[in-house]
């Protein structure tokens, strides 16, 4: 699949933004006193900005962005519509949290809003993952690994930002770096398992079943319907740089699963370097997520390419 930069930036930025908002919501639900009002407001601002930047970027992918409001209407059948609704609704508890923290009282309401915020943020990322995981036409996406990968990676991205924010507001050793190390390892493991899975997965269909001509023998394309590229071959037949997939996977795993735990360990050993370590973790995770998301699109093959007699279903490496 063609890796559109607008969609990659959207899923990375919004995923991390909603990850941060989820963590904040969870913290407010458990103990609203454990975080200062200013830090909570900053976290909402940062999470909201990341989410909004991602959503605006996703509008760039649309052919008719001015009609985007229509996407709120089909939540009964469409995960994309549900994502839009969940993403937009999550802004209500965000504003409520800011208002309550600014007023500085009412712990009960704050807990309730925190819960709503966590639920909205989690639901948005679930919807994002479901958009991809429900597409039967793309075997690399239509599997049980996609949803946990999106949730874990969103949470990791959000946790890295939360660490940086917390290091700036309350520079002391706490539980966040340890949580990040755990999340980073879990995310990398899941992503590795995802890659193992898609490499081993048998093809969803074959040129023989796509044409129904397999009963006569093996089917080979001798002439394509068109001599130039068309929309399908550009969008679904993306093959550029797939040969670098193996190296890019290693880079992604390094930035997601290896660098953040090392930075967390460094921060625990030398608390004075807390903020620089956290900032480096944010950048490492963001870079890793970008590589991971690029591969998520670029490595995925669409069954329609079977009509052009290209192999599908699994990924190939040079």
């Amino acid at each position, binding site marked *: 699949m063609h890796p559109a930069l607008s969609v990659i930036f959207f899923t990375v930025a919004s995923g991390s933004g909603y990850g941060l908002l989820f963590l904040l919501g969870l913290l407010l639900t458990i103990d609203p006193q454990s975080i200062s009002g200013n830090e909570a407001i900053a976290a909402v601002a940062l999470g909201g900005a990341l989410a909004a930047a991602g959503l605006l970027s996703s509008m760039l992918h649309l052919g*008719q962005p001015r009609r985007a409001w229509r996407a709120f209407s089909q939540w009964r059948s469409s995960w994309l519509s549900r994502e839009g609704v969940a993403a937009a609704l999550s802004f209500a508890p965000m504003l409520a949290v800011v208002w309550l923290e600014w007023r500085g009282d009412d712990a009960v309401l704050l807990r309730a809003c925190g819960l709503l915020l966590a639920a909205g943020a989690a639901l948005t990322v679930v919807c994002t993952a479901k958009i991809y995981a*429900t597409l039967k036409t793309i075997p690399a996406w239509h599997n049980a690994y996609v949803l946990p990968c999106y949730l874990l990676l969103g949470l990791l991205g959000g946790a890295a930002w939360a660490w940086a924010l917390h290091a700036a507001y309350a520079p002391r050793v706490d539980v966040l770096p340890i949580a990040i190390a755990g999340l980073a390892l879990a995310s990398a493991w899941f992503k590795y398992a995802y890659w193992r899975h898609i490499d081993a997965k048998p093809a969803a*269909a074959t040129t023989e079943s796509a044409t129904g*001509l397999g009963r006569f023998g093996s*089917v*080979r394309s001798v*002439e394509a*319907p068109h001599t130039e590229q068309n929309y399908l071959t550009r969008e679904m037949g993306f093959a550029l740089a797939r040969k670098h997939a193996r190296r890019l996977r290693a880079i992604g795993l390094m930035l997601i699963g290896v660098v953040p735990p090392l930075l967390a360990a460094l921060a625990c050993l030398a608390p004075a370097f807390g903020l620089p370590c956290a900032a480096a973790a944010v950048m490492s995770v963001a870079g890793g997520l970008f590589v991971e998301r690029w591969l998520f699109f670029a490595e995925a093959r669409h069954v329609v390419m079977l*009509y052009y007699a290209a192999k599908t279903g699994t990924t190939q490496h040079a």
Partner: protein
Amino acid sequence: MTMLPPPSPKKLGLVIDLDICVGCHACAVACKEWNDGGQFGPLPDENAYGREPLGVWFNRVHSYEIEPAETTGPAMTVHFPRSCLHCETPDCVTVCPTGASYKRAEDGIVLVDADKCIGCQLCAWACPYGAREYSQERGTMQKCTLCVDRIYNETLSEYDRQPACVMACPTRARHFGDLGDAESKVSKLVAERGGYDLMPEMGYKPVNKYLPPRPRRDGCATQAAPAREEKVDLSTASPLLRWMDRILSR
């Protein structure tokens, strides 16, 4: 509304006969001609006469070579027109976030409402048959309408109320009709010739059916045909031919 309507008794669609399709692309060209009429036709081209032309077509005609399994018989060429199958349970409809993509309750035709489409292209991702092509120029998704503006058009003569691709086919490899009616000509054709679905494992239940190539006289597509050796019985040939054979065999 992108929820699928309850199954309609009427299922308009095409039956495509792979036995007699000669791969002439007349269906594709006739479709382009009918649907590209004027500025608002659904088949826009970009850079049509330039170095890298790009355009929307609702018919794409592939050509395949089939190597028979475990035989030494000759390969078979099959021309394969690909277009929207107007599936009964298509994901291209249900994934649409705006309600632009819909399946008509009355006859099962799958259409795009160009005024509601936001151009997110998710429907094209959801289609395994490559039936939907996006127009960069318009920013909306384009797809086969089964010539809905012909088949119900009372200003046309009754014979002309068929999709343009069906009208144009010089070998009559394309048939249009109601596949929901077991007594219709197309349904009978499907029953008689063993018409089949493309990629049934996707679960989209295509309405359009394909008729398989008939067994070839040379045995291809039926059973293992032994390789034919050329043997010439010279004893029955004329003396002139025998003499020529002797000369040429030296």
